[in-house]
């Protein structure tokens, strides 16, 4: 017997814990990883339960279905075009009325809905926990407690989902009594053949809807919107929202959990973190701490990996007979792949810190603190998330700029994204900083990232004066409440990122190491290998930066993917050496400290990798901007590295 497949869509406000719940429901069986809070695309995952296959779809966090923003359109169109079998509406128990406003839209649209009341423990500690049974009775819907962190309510939730899906209930449409003029408008609109919910949604969104509006309906709608605005000072959207909230307050009143006396939710942490004078210093201090810990704490597991790699190399050297096979294994694969693999702990740590910042709610606060700086240089507040994502990988980060609707702000965010140092560049910094600046490695790391940010802002400031703006997009953001990161989500997220890193090691770095080894080994019995010839050819360009032919070829290879830089350095310098210590000694002997710093600066700024260039072309729609990005990177990198080397030579 084939099991039935049902689709369940998760929908809820931003920061209601939807993604944690999704992770809990689907376990590791989901298709794409994502940064918390930026689910612009939808994710899917599956679970078998009681012989039923449940396909969960995680929709972006939204406040309303009738609101013309990218995330909201994605959710609205999905619900209209491919209605799921059931909507699991995740509701934050700590902010019930606003969350239920979205629920009323689902119910008006007659979508079969189950409510998962999330963050109950938080609401309980504030003494505002709603009563599930009461709420279920009043809304005539299953209302279940849920918790994205612990599986304690999971079985109950799944039982109810399966039961609801098997019974296929037809929910009666919710009818909220709106203000009388609104009702009259709705009446006239339904007269043209629209459903009630369609009329309400059309009024609320001023005609930006998923379903088709005919010309005469659109004309009527415009009249009605204008008329409502002239009767009242408020827009149709405001009048309808007041109706929704009125209905919800009525419900709450009936359920005995009256929310009339609103207590302001404030937290002691905010008085430090958002303090007018302390806010920014605390932010910068936290970033420094993050890089310092990434370096120092990451060094321990890195040593273990290094020891294992060294052992493997020795074992291969002893076991495989002399010849090319041994060379390719030991000097090519083990040196190259091992040379990057040792930095896995650093990458994992950095991602852990970023994930903690996001999940705890600090990232939104950082966006608030830096908003003024960002808007000064022509960046939109929404650029913050794509820029932070850039620390992971520029490719998804550039795709995430789709949330920015103003074209100029989006273009600038795309072009400066490569200056946000992606995790592929981290191995190079950690390697070089560890060799040349062992005592202040964390600070050097921090400085390099800061330089990237500074460069990004400078370029943004220049671009924003060159490219005309089209319109200003307002920036209104909710600061999520402080929360302990959920261990499960954290682990899943970091596991995902570590997996990305490992899969790149298994693909591009492995093949890149082979290529470098090949060019390094042939022609045999000649003065210079192909690699050395190539390096010497271009070395005059890099000589003013203090870099030799080895670094030149390493930087060239980094065009494929930036991790390959570290692999190439390992292969080129490690010839004959067996472990990291050998590589470090060889680099220390071959490069001046100022040149090491210049190499880091060059790696930070020079042209984006192949995948990033491709995505810039795709997202901007022309090769022109991709070329601009390449040239900009090369010029800035050369200039920056030159200055670094010349000035640095005076000090070290």
């Amino acid at each position, binding site marked *: 017997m084939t099991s039935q497949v049902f689709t369940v869509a998760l929908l809820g406000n931003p920061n209601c814990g939807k993604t944690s719940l999704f992770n809990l429901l689907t376990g590791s069986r989901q*298709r*794409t*990883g*994502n*940064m918390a809070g*930026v*689910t*612009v*695309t*939808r994710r899917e995952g599956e679970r078998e339960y009681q012989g039923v296959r449940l396909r969960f779809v995680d929709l972006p966090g939204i406040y309303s279905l009738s609101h*013309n923003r*990218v995330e909201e*359109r994605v959710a609205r169109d999905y619900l209209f075009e491919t209605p799921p079998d059931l909507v699991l509406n995740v509701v934050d128990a700590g902010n019930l009325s606003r969350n239920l406003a979205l629920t009323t839209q689902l119910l008006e649209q007659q979508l079969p809905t189950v409510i998962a009341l999330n963050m109950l423990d938080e609401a309980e500690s504030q003494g505002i926990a709603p009563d599930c049974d009461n709420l279920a009775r009043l809304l005539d819907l299953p209302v279940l407690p849920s918790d994205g962190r612990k599986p304690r309510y999971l079985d109950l939730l799944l039982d109810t989902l399966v039961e609801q899906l098997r019974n296929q209930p037809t929910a009666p449409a919710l009818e909220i009594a709106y203000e009388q003029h609104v009702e009259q408008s709705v009446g006239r609109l339904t007269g043209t053949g629209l459903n009630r919910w369609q009329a309400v949604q059309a009024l609320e969104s001023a005609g930006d809807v998923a379903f088709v509006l005919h010309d005469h309906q659109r004309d009527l709608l415009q009249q009605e919107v204008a008329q409502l605005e002239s009767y009242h000072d408020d827009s149709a959207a405001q009048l309808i929202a007041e109706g929704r909230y009125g209905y919800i307050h009525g419900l709450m009143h009936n359920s005995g959990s009256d929310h009339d006396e609103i207590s302001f939710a404030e937290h002691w942490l905010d008085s430090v973190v958002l303090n007018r004078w302390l806010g920014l210093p605390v932010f910068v201090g936290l970033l420094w701490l993050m890089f310092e810990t990434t370096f120092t704490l990451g060094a321990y597991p890195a040593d273990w990996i290094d020891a294992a790699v060294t052992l493997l190399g020795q074992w291969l050297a002893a076991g495989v007979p002399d*010849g*090319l*096979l041994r060379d*390719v294994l030991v000097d090519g694969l083990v040196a190259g792949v091992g040379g990057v693999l040792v930095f896995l702990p650093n990458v994992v740590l950095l991602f852990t810190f970023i994930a903690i910042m996001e999940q705890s709610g600090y990232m939104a606060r950082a966006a608030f603190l830096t908003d003024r700086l960002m808007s000064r240089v022509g960046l939109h507040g929404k650029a913050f998330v794509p820029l932070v994502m850039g620390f992971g*990988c520029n*490719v*998804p980060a*550039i*795709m*995430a700029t*789709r949330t920015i*609707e103003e*074209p100029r702000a989006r273009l600038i965010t795309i072009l400066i994204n490569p200056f946000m140092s992606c995790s*592929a560049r981290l191995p190079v910094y950690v390697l070089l900083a560890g060799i040349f600046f062992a005592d202040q490695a964390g600070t050097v790391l921090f400085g390099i990232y800061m330089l990237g940010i500074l460069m990004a802002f400078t370029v943004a400031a220049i671009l924003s004066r060159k490219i005309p703006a089209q319109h200003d997009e307002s920036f209104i953001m909710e600061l999520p409440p402080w929360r302990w990161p959920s261990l499960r989500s954290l682990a899943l997220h970091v596991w*995902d990122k570590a*997996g*990305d890193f490992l*899969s*790149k090691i298994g*693909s*591009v770095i492995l*093949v890149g190491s*082979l*290529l470098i*080894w*090949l060019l390094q080994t042939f*022609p*045999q*019995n000649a003065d210079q290998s192909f690699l050395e010839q190539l390096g010497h050819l271009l070395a005059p360009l890099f000589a003013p930066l203090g870099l030799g032919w080895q670094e030149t070829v390493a930087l060239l290879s980094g065009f*494929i*993917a930036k991790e390959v830089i570290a692999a190439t350095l390992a292969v080129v310098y490690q010839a004959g050496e067996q472990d990291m210590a050998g590589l470090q000694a060889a680099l220390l002997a071959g490069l001046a400290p100022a040149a090491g710093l210049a190499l880091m600066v060059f790696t930070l700024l020079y042209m984006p*990798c*192949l*995948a*990033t260039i*491709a*995505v810039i072309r*795709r*997202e901007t729609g022309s090769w022109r901007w991709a070329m601009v990005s390449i040239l900009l990177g090369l010029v800035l990198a050369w200039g920056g590295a030159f200055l670094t080397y010349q000035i640095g030579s005076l000090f070290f």
Partner: protein
Amino acid sequence: MGDLSWLDLIVLAVVVLVILTWFSRFIRRSLSAGCDKSSGCAGCSGCDTPDNPSNS
């Protein structure tokens, strides 16, 4: 290169073959529409994004 044994030649051929096939695939995929593991963003969030972002 007379000092290469037949085993060396096989190894060399395999290495060259791997590099050539992999890189041609890598470059093709990087420049084509989709993005996947080999083009440097394994499991990245944007990979399933519909191709027509709203430009309003």
